[in-house]
């Protein structure tokens, strides 16, 4: 370790930090991960076997997935019950869904929601008959073909697979009890629907598969269908996808890719993927951002929303324009602005509706043109009244380089404010304390360098030449790559293979609900290669992932 002679407090304190920041191949260091890669050679020898595959198990539907699914199943219904909160992991709700535990009240509310939603689905007799698809015969007690076919169809949509004979019998029983009690076949079917939606088979997506001779588990066709559909539509599979599963069309990568392409071509994919990018890149809360009105009088909730809209549109154009290079996110030739946001950027939009968004070509010498110069990033990764270079740097490390920065130790004193002895100091001067200690420097040398490169952009993303009259030094280096300012930093990240790999990792975690560890490195690397070879087309990356073994096969059960 680094710590030997200079045992000042701050040194000792910071020395603990080196662990997560010094390695060449920084990864997520958590228990599950260590378990799967405790020993290099062991991990290596098993790399082609079981452990190369992600872990599998149950993933609870996120709130959005729940809502999208019930609408796909029941039609136009509204969720009038608050469900348990999502608990994101590594920024992603879809990853947190693999470990989140339902609260007692949450379980109760799943029941309430199911009964209310089913009641909405059956509220109108005429509509209900349409929905049922046949005329169930009164009197009610009988299980007839109509009742059966309805339960089978709704069950298939809700549970994302056909029901077994026993399961069918259980749901029929619910129908029978209620229909007989109320002498009303519709009430019976409503109760059967509620039972399907209250079941853990609806609330938790199963990615369990069945064991193969090499110790891995292969997901069944329906589990693969659900993986596809939750990845690309954030909802339950449609009947066409379930039929493809039934007909064995998802047994090879060609078949899976065909369905993926079909789903990607629907507008629903745009909504679903946008939500994922918002989570990964931290653009999910801009409307609620609070800023100090004295420091930033021009910041308004509508400006926050405009920042979010800019991001959404940029992402959509990068992902859904054919053959577009996704890494241009860090080197944009154009962006989407309305009048309020254009003003912040010192740009102009054509006259007309000031709220309307227009694609604006950025001049070659523009200061903008990167994720890292977008207002949404700069404003969220800042304090209410000033910039936050450490947060910005940490964002770059965490979200773009997938480098985990361990939390600071408990007894680090706060950095003194930016006024020292009555004289204003720049953020760089304040943060010099970090790099003065070798221990702190292990993490901060990178974080601070990356963050300080963006100091020309204030706490809401407006450009500034100086900080309180002081000249800004925005030069720095990460991993031997030197840069001067936001533009150069962005371009060096655009060409960084680590950023490309990190892009892959986030999709991997989101799609598979599993963490990537050392044992999965070959897979990640192969996907990065394919991504690179495609000219960084994001849809090609998605297609490569769904065609890979990682998508259809799991190692251990969680």
């Amino acid at each position: 370790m680094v710590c030997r002679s200079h045992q000042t407090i701050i040194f000792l304190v910071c020395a603990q930090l080196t662990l997560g920041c010094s390695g060449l191949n920084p990864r997520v260091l958590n228990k599950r991960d260590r378990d799967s890669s405790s020993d290099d050679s062991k991990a290596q020898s098993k790399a082609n076997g079981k452990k190369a595959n992600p872990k599998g198990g149950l993933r609870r539907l996120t709130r959005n997935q729940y809502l999208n699914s019930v609408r796909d199943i029941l039609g136009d219904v509204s969720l009038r019950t608050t469900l348990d909160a999502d608990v994101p992991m590594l920024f992603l709700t879809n990853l947190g869904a693999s470990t989140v535990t339902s609260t007692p009240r949450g379980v109760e509310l799943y029941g309430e929601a199911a009964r209310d939603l089913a009641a909405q689905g059956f509220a109108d007799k005429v509509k209900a008959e349409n929905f049922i698809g046949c005329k169930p015969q009164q009197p009610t007690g009988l299980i007839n073909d109509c009742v059966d076919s309805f339960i089978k169809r709704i069950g298939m949509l809700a549970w994302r697979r056909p029901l077994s004979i026993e399961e069918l019998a259980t749901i029929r029983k619910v129908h029978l009890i209620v229909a007989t009690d109320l002498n009303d076949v519709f009430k019976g079917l409503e109760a059967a629907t509620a039972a399907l939606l209250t079941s853990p088979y609806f609330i938790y997506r199963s990615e369990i598969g069945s064991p193969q001779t090499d110790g891995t588990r292969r997901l069944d066709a329906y589990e693969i269908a659900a993986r596809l559909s939750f990845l690309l539509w954030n909802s339950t599979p449609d009947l066409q996808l379930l039929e493809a599963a039934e007909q064995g069309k998802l047994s090879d990568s060609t078949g899976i890719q065909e369905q993926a392409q079909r789903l990607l071509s629907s507008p629903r994919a745009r909504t679903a993927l946008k939500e994922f990018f918002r989570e990964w890149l931290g653009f999910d809360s801009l409307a609620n951002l609070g800023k100090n009105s004295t420091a930033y009088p021009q910041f308004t909730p509508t400006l926050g929303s405009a920042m979010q809209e800019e991001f959404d549109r940029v992402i959509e154009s990068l992902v859904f324009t054919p053959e577009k290079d996704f890494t241009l996110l860090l080197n944009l030739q154009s962006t989407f602005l309305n009048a309020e946001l254009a003003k912040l950027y010192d740009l102009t939009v054509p006259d007309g509706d000031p709220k309307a968004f227009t694609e604006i070509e950025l001049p070659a010498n523009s200061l903008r043109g990167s994720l890292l110069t977008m207002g949404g990033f700069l404003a969220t990764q800042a304090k209410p009244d000033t910039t936050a270079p450490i947060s910005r740097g940490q964002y770059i490390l965490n979200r773009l380089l997938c480098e985990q920065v361990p939390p600071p130790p408990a007894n680090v004193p706060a950095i003194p404010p930016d006024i020292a002895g009555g004289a204003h100091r720049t953020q760089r001067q304040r943060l010099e304390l970090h790099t003065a200690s070798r221990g702190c420097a292990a993490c901060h040398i990178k974080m601070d360098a990356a963050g300080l490169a963006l100091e020309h952009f204030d706490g809401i993303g407006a450009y500034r030449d100086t900080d309180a009259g002081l000249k800004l030094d925005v030069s720095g280096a990460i991993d031997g790559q030197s840069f001067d300012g936001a533009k150069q930093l962005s371009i060096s990240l655009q060409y960084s293979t680590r950023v490309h790999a990190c892009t892959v990792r986030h999709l991997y975690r989101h799609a598979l609900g599993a963490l990537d560890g050392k044992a999965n490195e070959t897979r990640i690397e192969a996907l990065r290669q394919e991504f690179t070879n495609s000219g960084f087309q994001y849809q090609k990356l998605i297609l490569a992932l769904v065609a890979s073994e990682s998508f259809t096969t799991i190692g251990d059960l969680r």
Partner: protein
Amino acid sequence: MRFKALDRRKLLRGMVSGSLVSFGLPLLDSMMNNHGTALANDQPLPKRFGLWFWGVGAMPDYWRLSNTGLGWVPSDGLSALQPVKDYVSVISNTRHPAVPVVHYGGQAYLLTGRYNKNGSDQQTNQYGSPGGPSVDQIVAKAWKGKTPIDSLVVGVSSAYQGSCCGLPPTQASWIDNNVPNHHEFSLTGFYKKLFGVASDNLHDALQRRSILDAVRGDLAALQSRVGKADKLRLDAHAQAVRDIEVGIDKLASSQCTPPPAPQDLDILPTKEPLSERNRLFTDMIAVALSCDLTRVFTVQFTGRENDTVFWQVGATQGTHTLSHNGDRASIDKLNQAFKFTMGEFAYLLEKFKNTPDGNSNLLASSCIYATSCVGNPVSHSYDRDLLLMIAGGAQGALKPGIHYRAGFEMSSAVALTALHAVDVKLPAFGSDGMESSRPIGALLNA
């Protein structure tokens, strides 16, 4: 066991008259012995436990008390507590080991005694989160099964609830490490939970039960196919289903008279009806405790690091934003918001005081632990200037009405004291250098 109805109008009249009116033995009278001092079967009267939380602390100069011991004189900040101050002990000057990040660490430490430095978000943030169950859930677990509902958890202000921007979830109540509790924000949902089952007709009940039967079978079948960690998750789910079934029976047989059903109020972020919502929630909680539907409750008045806009005092910005502004005008607004907040806490205490319980009142039966996530809002201090309170009598276990200025105690001693007052006698509260193993003797009757 049969409960008598609580007559809400009588109680309101009692409040209006300003002093505690004896209504005779309410609710639990059929369960009482002849003196109203114990249950008919000589079991002691039930104690109740509450957690009352507000976010963003309070300016120490504004609430600091001038005298210690019994008969503390309210400062301007705590003036709303004047009518109930004999039931409230204020604990100041406790120590608090430094945890790195202010709101998160402070909340984690004060409410759970445990700080998970990696956070619920596992390694992604430097913020950390509560590392175990919060005090209310510790008590709920200890008292599990005694009442139809284990605990009630409500959120009054919905500004900045849940998790945001990669920050850990903000909930005050935690079931365990990584399991933030569900907070009820809907008045109608809460009403339905408390009083809905009893109004179910036979058909509703049959439907509920047949669905739960089906679900129980599904859970068992699924549990046999999953790995270890998933099995634990499904265990928690299955336990909740069993609790619902047991709870339904108990709720259905209770004869608790519901208060008037509330309507959900419009919530504009800059114009939240905080007082109205707080009072409607509080009234329902008082009835639920009084009828023994539950013995544990949590009110998260405002969330950790909340940006609740206290328009009632003329604020146009949220409290967290105001705290970062730090100028005189903002601090004035923060102070007024705090005074308002204490007024809402006082509403609950008065409501309890005016709710008969045995031959005494609900406040005398309760122990309510109240605190925030930081001390000084402007400096965001988390290791000093903390305001902690324990309100109520806990059936004589607490010595209320004291200002206790801690000499050496850590903040966790206060939570431990509250737990001991309701006979949840943990040997220590907290961990990792945050533990206290001695409750504060000055606040407890031997």
